[in-house]
């Protein structure tokens, strides 16, 4: 009986989180369109609803109703599985994300490691999509993204080690508690820079959007996708943005905790910090040109890798000295 209740509660939580996340993701796309539009001196969506507020819903409906095209020479099974393989890891990660002190689906001791492990699977979907489309542009996009995500995953993984050493735990809740005095971003500035760049690369966002560089590879790995399958890729990208932003907030910006003198609920703090992160993501997309593939790799291996290694060494050394 207890077990059944537990499962039921978990199911309800999952249902809530999943739906809220989907809705929020849809509206993030709206916000992105609006922010970029205003950066570019135009208005963005204005027609559907007040200031285009219903635009995401219209977009979703359109994608639902669109014809679903599977290319003749594609590998059907892999082609259909690929978008699922991209979306599922993106949402599974939400199982361990702490949205506030009390609101989370579950918490496990290796929370951070779980996130890294699951989010590393997203690249499968992309590689599968690129290969199964049987298109040269898709294949090139998939190759780029595989190389990019593999290498940047390494920097991402190494960059979280610094805060991890300070917190002494992989449990996300405990990491947040460890920052109740000072945010880790002040202790770990190098780690944060590396983390932020790697996070942008992991989510394939500008200026690292090489796998889907529309002016070079048409749309990269999802060139051949349409309708709901295309929407899956799109959703996954934004869901991943949320994940990396949340991880960044938890690791470097004290999670849902805010300064004591401003009495706001934890969830509000979380949303505020998340908004800032998302805004920076969008802002960068509106501002920066795109890196070239070899330059991206060079930045990663020749600049970020030594930096993050130095950071781990320094952290260990200083922790040994002062703590």
């Amino acid at each position, binding site marked *: 009986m207890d077990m059944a209740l537990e499962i039921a509660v978990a199911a309800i939580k999952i249902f809530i989180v999943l739906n809220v996340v989907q809705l929020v993701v849809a509206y993030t796309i709206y916000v992105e369109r609006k922010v*970029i539009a205003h*950066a*570019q*001196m*135009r208005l963005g969506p204005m027609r559907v609803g007040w200031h285009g507020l219903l635009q995401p819903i219209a977009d979703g409906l359109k994608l639902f109703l669109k014809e679903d095209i599977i290319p003749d020479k594609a590998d059907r099974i892999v082609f259909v599985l690929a978008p699922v393989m991209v979306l599922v890891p993106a949402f599974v990660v939400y199982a361990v994300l702490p949205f506030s002190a009390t609101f989370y689906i579950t918490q496990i001791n290796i929370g951070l490691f779980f996130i890294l492990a699951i989010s590393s699977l997203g690249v499968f979907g992309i590689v599968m999509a690129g290969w199964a489309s049987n298109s*040269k*542009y898709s294949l*090139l996009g998939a190759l*780029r993204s595989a190389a990019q995500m593999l290498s940047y995953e390494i920097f991402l993984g190494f960059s979280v080690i610094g805060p991890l050493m300070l917190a002494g735990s992989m449990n996300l809740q405990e990491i947040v508690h460890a920052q109740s005095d000072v945010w880790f971003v002040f202790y770990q500035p190098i780690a944060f820079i590396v983390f932020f760049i790697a996070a942008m690369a992991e989510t394939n966002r*500008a*200026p690292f*959007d*090489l796998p889907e*560089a*529309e*002016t*070079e*590879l*048409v749309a990269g790995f999802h060139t051949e996708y349409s309708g709901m399958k295309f929407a899956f890729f799109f959703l996954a990208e934004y869901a991943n943005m949320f994940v990396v932003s949340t991880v960044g907030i938890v690791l470097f910006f004290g999670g849902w905790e805010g300064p004591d003198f401003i009495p706001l609920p934890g969830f509000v703090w979380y949303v505020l910090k998340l908004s800032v992160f998302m805004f920076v993501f969008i802002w960068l*997309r*509106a*501002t*920066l*040109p*795109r*890196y*070239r*593939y*070899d*330059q991206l790799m060079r930045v990663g291996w020749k600049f970020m890798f030594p930096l993050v290694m130095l950071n781990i060494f320094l952290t260990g050394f200083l922790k040994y000295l002062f703590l």
Partner: protein
Amino acid sequence: MVGVANVSRIEQQSTVHGTEELVINMGPQHPSTHGVLRVILKLDGETVNDLDCDIGYLHRGTEKIGENITYTMFIPYTDRLDYIAAPSNNLAWVTAVEKFFDWEIPMRAQYIRSMVGELSRIASHLLWLATHALDIGAMTVFLWCFREREMVLDLFETAFGGRLTVNAFRLGGLHEDVPDKFLQLTQEFIDIFPSRIDDYETLLTNNRIWLQRTRDVGIISAEDAMDLGLTGPIIRGSGVSWDLRRAKPYAAYPYLDFVVPVGENGDIYDRYLVRIEELRQSTRIIQQCLEQLPGGPVTCKTPRTIKPPEGEIYHSIENPKGEFGFYIVSDGTTTPYRVRIRPPSFINLGGLKKLCVGQLVADVVAIIGSIDIVLGECDR
């Protein structure tokens, strides 16, 4: 259907033992080939080993049309060549035909021609900057440039009624004088435009990613540029200070003061700087035109039917894209015997292979952008 044999030609060569080169087809429906250009790339990984351009999708036989209609009737056809900077084409044709005669073109017309020519240079360079930046991934510059290009097109509309294909000039001068509103609006545009150029530069000129993408990419030396027949901002980017407005002045350019910007390394970044500086110089020229604009008639006395004497002439002007010329053979009748268009885009595009081989796919996109082609003129 066009050029199907091209692919098979490349593919036949590519059967090597073990590894195979990837042949990809960029265009004619690719976001960054600027129209209907098709580039067949032979790749080793992401490095370009060989490249073949397939053009002609927009071939309309403009030269043949020119040989069968009168000199005046051909003016609107020139609009459709480099449709990004249509008045410039009109200017080339009009001045070319006028070379047959010894008409005294009124100075007011000459100044307005120069002014409109520079406006079209601004319009063209703005579209180039917009698409070039977009190709490299800078999205915002695209719309900022279009905001100003829109203003230039509005100016054309005020003066000539058309926006894109304006049919601006007539043999012997202008069709009629431009309205005062045009001069006033041009002054307003000139006043704000320099600060807008600063805005573009804020986003790009010192941007590290932009520098990495454009510096030392697509380098062409001055000698190679001449060998490939490259003209316009490309050859100036390679360090050759040569501008037809200065070398063979036409319209009111002998009386105008401007600087011919020159690059050093001949890479994409230098071409970018040259064009940005040309935007500023164009602004300066227009300002001078507005200040010096004389009064008087805008057209000289021309015969009712234009019948140039027998002979042949070649005349070219400095279009935004390079040297744009006409070779005309007259047989003494009202229609030219032979019209040849010297298209800068076509010849500059011929240098693409030299520029791209050995570079990466992403660079090909940047290089095509830096050549600044327009397919209407390339295919004619």
